[in-house]
């Protein structure tokens, strides 16, 4: 009763293995080679994979299960960041109090927003959450400047109290840590031409990612999860059977808000500052995109989507015209310049254009995301082998309503 099914266990162990071995897996190309720019095995990026993975998992609990499309999740991320930084300022540079406060405050905040927004469903709900997120952005950006430090963003200073830490005599800003382990500490392992980096911050994030993933599996398989799916399938019918669905949706909303708070807290733990731009609507859109790209309503999808987006964001924004010219240098000059001119709009600073196009493509052609794509390929592969594909159960996720 208290155990996971075999396939869930497999999924969990795969995710665990990938996240533990990420420094190897993400670093396939030797240092200094032409392909080294496609490596992703450095601490900052790996931390972002894990943090945004948590965020997408949380968002998926709301959107994937209940079908309520929230456009304001970045607000909870920002709230989490701010509360964590305040903890670092007031209490201690240990990340634990910061994370706890981040989760609690984000939970309370999402309870408040959820209570109002969940009075309506469908489009209304999306619009309301979007409006609340913009309101939180304005609050953080200007209205609540004493708490959020407005445009500059909340930062650590030397004369913060930090009650638990004792006096800071070094004259440098203290760094975040976990009982003496500093988040930025990185252990480098050189094997031949490869340099693998093991970062403490990343492993802390990965641990939280695994915890979040485990909780998400439990929610997916629980009676509570079933109830959420029922809401997505047909809320009216559920109401007619005499069930009040709002407590369930509110619970899902708060849980996913707490996930976002945790992600925000981790973000602040890795780099102790918090700015209002983290709460803007573009950030909320990115969260939605990650979940959809990976596959809404699937366990693995959101993590995949988050990794995919963050990886390509990083790679695409690094490519500039010079790099493009070296790639296409084998072509005749005129053609080379033409191709570079066209591609130039999609890379570097134009990454957002690619992101928008990708977003549209996914929604139009592959509403089930990468998971559905993979499933389709596997199906076709099996059919070619001669096995009857009709017996494979159709588990393709249906887009949310």
């Amino acid at each position: 009763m208290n155990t996971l099914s075999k396939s869930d266990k497999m999924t969990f162990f795969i995710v665990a293995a990938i996240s533990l071995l990420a420094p190897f897996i993400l670093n396939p190309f030797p240092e200094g080679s032409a392909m080294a720019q496609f490596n992703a095995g450095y601490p900052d990026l790996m931390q972002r994979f894990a943090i945004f993975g948590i965020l997408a998992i949380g968002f998926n609990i709301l959107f994937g299960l209940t079908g309520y499309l929230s456009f304001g999740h970045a607000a909870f991320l920002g709230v989490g960041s701010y509360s964590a930084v305040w903890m670092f300022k007031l209490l201690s540079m240990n990340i634990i109090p910061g994370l706890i406060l981040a989760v609690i405050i984000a939970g309370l905040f999402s309870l408040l927003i959820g209570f109002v927004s969940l009075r309506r469903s469908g489009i209304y709900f999306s619009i309301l959450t979007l409006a609340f997120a913009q309101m939180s952005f304005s609050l953080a950006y200007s209205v609540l400047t004493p708490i959020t430090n407005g445009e500059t963003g909340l930062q650590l200073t030397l004369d913060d109290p930090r009650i638990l830490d004792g006096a800071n005599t070094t004259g440098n800003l203290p760094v975040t840590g976990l009982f003496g382990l500093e988040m930025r500490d990185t252990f480098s392992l050189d094997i031949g031409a490869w340099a693998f980096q093991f970062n403490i911050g990343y492993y802390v994030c990965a641990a939280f990612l695994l915890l979040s993933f485990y909780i998400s599996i439990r929610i997916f398989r629980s009676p509570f999860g079933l109830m959420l799916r029922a809401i997505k399938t047909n809320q009216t019918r559920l109401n007619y059977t005499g069930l009040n669905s709002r407590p369930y949706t509110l619970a899902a909303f708060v849980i996913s808000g707490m996930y976002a708070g945790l992600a925000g807290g981790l973000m602040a733990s890795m780099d102790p500052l918090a700015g209002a731009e983290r709460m803007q609507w573009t950030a909320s859109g990115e969260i939605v995109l990650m979940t959809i790209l990976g596959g809404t309503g699937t366990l693995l999808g959101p993590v995949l989507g988050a990794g995919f987006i963050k990886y390509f964001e990083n790679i695409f924004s690094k490519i500039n015209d010079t790099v493009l010219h070296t790639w296409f240098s084998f072509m005749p000059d005129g053609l080379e310049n033409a191709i570079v001119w066209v591609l130039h709009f999609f890379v570097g600073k134009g990454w957002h254009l690619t992101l928008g196009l990708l977003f549209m493509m996914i929604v139009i052609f592959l509403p089930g995301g990468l998971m559905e794509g993979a499933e389709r390929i596997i199906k076709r592969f099996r059919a070619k082998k001669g096995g009857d594909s009709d017996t494979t159960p159709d588990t393709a996720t249906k887009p949310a309503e």
Partner: protein
Amino acid sequence: MDAILLQILNGLDKGSAYALIALGLTLIFGTLGVVNFAHGALFMLGSFCAVTLSKILVISKVTIDPEKVDFLGNPLKVKTPYVMEWFGESAGSTIIDWSVPLAILFAIPVMLLVGYIMERGLIKHFYKRPHADQILVTFGLAIVIQEIVKAAFGANPIPTPAPDVFRGSYDFGVLIGMEANAVIYPFWRLIYFGFSATIIAAVFAFLQFTTFGMVVRAGMADRETVGLLGINIDKRFTFMFGIAAAVAGLAGVMYTPINSPNYHMGMDFLVLSFVVVVVGGMGSLPGAVLAGFLLGILESFASMNEVKGFFEALYLPSIDQIIIYLVAIIVLLTRPRGLMGRAGVMED
């Protein structure tokens, strides 16, 4: 008294923009049942129509004037805009000066076409899909349009002034019997208000008094029955989408002198327009217009120094940035359907 009047006037121009965008949103929602997250991008495109036209008008022919020389004795290059060459110096400069109002003529066909392409090319395929998909695809489209504009025009705001005649302020107080200089108000904002009032009236008249409008209203009420009567309602709805796009575009064109266009202005306005639609009542055209003006005026009252001082005295932060959202929350908690929303619309 004059302070209150001034704040009402101040709220009117922003309120007009909200009302126009919200009107278009409601039109699209009422006819096609789609929430268009790219509507703010259409507003922004309208603004950039004005920018484009003002740039086209000053395209110049470079001639070498042998009579003028610089200090080294080389002949100077003189730029004469083609418009000046064709229409003469004074007429040409007037045309350049009036580029923003002229852009209305330029924007109407452009925006109708953009709306048509958007509906036929993309949104048509999403009628049968869930609402979430419609939101997502238009949201993606908004990002794409925004980024294209950013790539073409740069990230900085582009100032595009109003014609010289309207650049000053008008002593509005004298008109209604107050002493001079009590209520002074920029000309262009008055024009903007008049312009949007005209557009809103035109849209309502079109829906109310033409056969086409009557059919569209019938289609909004019961699409299937209208279809059964042998009327191609889809075609008319596509046209209404074009109209909604043109309304948003025109709102953008005329807004350029008030606020220099930048690539993200669309989204800033869109979020507020959504709130306006929700407050007004989803699917209600008069509700959208009413709520647009109301919230615009409220916003300007909240930014009054007296109001700010009042909040400061209570040790509260000033609320001018978030008043609209606060009102939305209150309206939603007390009247979940909005001010003028009808039962049965978007009840899920």
